[in-house]
């Protein structure tokens, strides 16, 4: 295992220390491993709390700041944070207008946030669970779809709405609407290596790739022969388009890198995806290309489409000032 780390057991602690040093505009609660915006709590504003396992950077800590999250809880690598962290975050961002928990749909995240919401008494908490991964069949009897790429777009859009002073119920409904309108699909060229495990999570021969992966280094739905970018784009875009009609509104198109795929390749993929969307009659209004919701050192990418009406687009365009996304300020 080749990584820029000291001891796997201290990775998250030490990365947070570096993040605090690099971003004096943020406040890092090292004991609870919570990244706060520097001016939290903002009076009268709905507080946005997100979080999850580490290893997905810049998500979530890199999305803390004006126009996006108020706080992010960092768990161990690929492991949901614990309720204590979420309670500390919730208390630290409550400016009197209530708090929205943004939770990706993983059993661990859902259960820990659930416990935190029960424990954060006195504070009005709403929860949105993001589940946008079309690789997973949705069903009443299973854990349901994973939360992946849409989370990034949702945190930006809902962050802008909270910044405008919209009330909790409206912000929570908006978040659910964004989740309803977003779909993602991902693939991996290589496995990542979880530092504590010390070796790749799965073996993937030079001639094969995984389609339908999540963001925790888990194997995908199926393993197929390595293919050119053009065919990979089809394998990602087709299931997204057949799951939801994206021709009714303009879309935000997000091509995400899993961590070790260089930007050069991501732009190439974006070109392939854009060409497919054009052919399918989907109009792209905004785009985002880069490693924003990653899986440590996994090579690969995911495609997220979000159906975006005028409200969503203007919230997307609104100012945001975080380490990971910054514009309009």
């Amino acid at each position, binding site marked *: 295992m080749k990584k820029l780390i000291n001891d796997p057991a201290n990775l998250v602690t030490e990365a947070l220390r570096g993040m605090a040093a690099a971003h004096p505009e943020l406040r890092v609660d090292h004991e609870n491993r919570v990244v706060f915006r520097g001016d939290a709590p903002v009076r009268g504003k709905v507080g946005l709390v997100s979080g999850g*396992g580490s290893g997905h950077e810049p998500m979530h800590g890199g999305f803390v700041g004006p126009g996006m999250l108020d706080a992010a809880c960092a*768990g*161990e*690598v*690929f*492991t*949901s*944070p*614990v*309720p*204590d962290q979420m309670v500390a975050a919730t208390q630290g961002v409550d400016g009197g207008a209530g708090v929205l928990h943004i939770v990706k749909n*993983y*059993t*661990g995240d859902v*259960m*820990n946030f*659930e*416990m935190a919401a029960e424990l954060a008494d006195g504070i009005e908490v709403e929860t949105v669970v993001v589940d946008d*991964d079309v*690789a*997973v*069949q949705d069903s009443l*009897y*299973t*854990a349901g779809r*994973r939360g992946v790429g849409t989370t990034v777009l949702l945190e930006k859009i809902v962050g802008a709405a909270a910044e405008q002073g919209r009330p909790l119920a409206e912000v929570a409904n908006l978040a659910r609407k964004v989740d309803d309108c977003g779909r993602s699909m991902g693939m991996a060229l290589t496995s990542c290596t*979880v530092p*504590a*495990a010390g070796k790749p*999570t*799965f073996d993937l021969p030079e001639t094969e790739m995984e389609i339908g992966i*999540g963001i*925790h*280094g*888990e*194997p995908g*739905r*199926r393993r197929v022969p390595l293919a050119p970018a053009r065919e990979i784009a089809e394998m990602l875009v087709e299931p997204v388009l057949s799951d939801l009609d994206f021709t009714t509104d303009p879309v935000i198109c997000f091509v995400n890198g899993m961590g070790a795929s260089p930007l050069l390749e991501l732009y190439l993929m974006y070109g392939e995806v854009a060409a497919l969307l054009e052919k399918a009659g989907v109009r792209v209004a905004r785009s985002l290309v880069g490693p924003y919701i990653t899986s440590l050192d996994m090579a690969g990418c995911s495609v997220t489409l979000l159906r975006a009406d005028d409200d969503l687009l203007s919230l997307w365009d609104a100012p945001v000032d975080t380490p990971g996304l910054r514009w309009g300020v």
Partner: protein
Amino acid sequence: MTEVDGFVAWVRAFAASIESHQGELTDLDSAIGDADHGANMARGMAAVVAALDAAEFETVGALFKKVGMTLVSTVGGASGPLYGTLFLRIGTAAGEATSLDPDSVAKALRAGLEGVVARGRPEAGDKTMFDALSPALDALDQALTDGSPLSEALRAASQAADEGRDATTPMLARKGRASYLGERSVGHQDPGATSAALLIATAAETLP
């Protein structure tokens, strides 16, 4: 009757067992999950051992609540709330007692399992820790009803847990991360069922 000390010995034995099986749990979780179950449980149980070292417990309830709270606060992931709730409910069931008779042990464990069900809503055959715990507690009840002493009943429970753990291998996962693999989850033993079998095995080894 099992005294507080007996339960402390169990918890410590479980921690030691997790520690020595950490690599195996992580390997199982690598195949159908995210390669952290070993680290999660080891981190949590190390914190539990530290908590046991730092305090004395008057009642069985206080002991298990501390264990549960510590797991909830240090593990995270799916196993944190699940094992945390398991121990919290055992603690609640045991209450102020300073020792438990075999039936109370079985009842407390049953309450723990109900906590797991309330938290994670697993059903039989979902390929989770439930599939080791549930047959184990059924076997425990049955053995106690048949008049076996606790240690023997726990051995039966441990055997049932091991069988339940083994039975997860051919299952198609419907809960937890492994469910994302669909058909590909078939043929792999569930990591949580594996750690759960260790829990029952160490109970059989330690509880008088």
